[in-house]
């Protein structure tokens, strides 16, 4: 089962410059494991201490996964996953 994952500029060093890669998994967690298997190092940029990083946004079919169960969000064939780092800061 194939899911398209859109990769932001800052993480394309892990995907050989690719803007989008195919991955698989029945949950976001499994998808990230599959990404890691093919693009070593990327998981650590997405997950910290078993949870999604605070300043990384992941969307499944345009919905923020924080509203879909986070890493446990379920995925289906043909879903589109988008990863975007937060645009944020503070003085």
């Amino acid at each position: 089962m194939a899911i398209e994952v859109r990769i932001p500029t800052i993480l394309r060093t892990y995907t050989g410059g690719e803007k989008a890669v195919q991955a698989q998994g029945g949950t976001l967690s499994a998808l990230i494991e599959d990404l890691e298997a093919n693009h070593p190092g990327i998981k650590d940029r997405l997950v910290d201490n078993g949870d999604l990083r605070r300043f990384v946004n992941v969307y499944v079919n345009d919905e923020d996964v924080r509203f879909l169960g986070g890493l446990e969000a379920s995925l289906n064939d043909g879903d589109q996953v988008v990863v975007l780092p937060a645009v944020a800061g503070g003085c």
Partner: protein
Amino acid sequence: MLTIDQATYDAIVAHAKRDHPDEACGVVAGPAGSDRPERFVPMVNAAGSPTFYEFDSGELLRLYKEMDDRDEEPVVVYHSHTATEAYPSRTDVALASEPGAHYVLVSTREHGNNEGPVEFRSYRIVDGEVTEEEVTVVPSLEPAGTQQPRSEA
């Protein structure tokens, strides 16, 4: 160097003054690879805070999809500091995730919502390293494709 037109410069400053004492934020998008800040896109500071800014997650997705559809990228990412100087904070640096962007900082600490000059400075933030750059404000950007290649002095 950041080259920006007067109207866009003024729009960023006006946004910062309007939202003071909260931090204001937004981008100026431009054609991918052009380094031309053409399309001013003010964003809502979802944090609504004088010490923090964050694009709303849904609006962030819409913005990036829109830029993708138009073959644009964020040429400028701007935000304001309302009580401190226009220099990237440690948090700003840690969270900077657009190595190709000009990070513009505006400080409204001196005049707040009122008329008066602001600090307007621009930086590159790459791999945690901050490099300030010159800001050139021009009446309007040269038409695309007519800019002379700049010889590096």
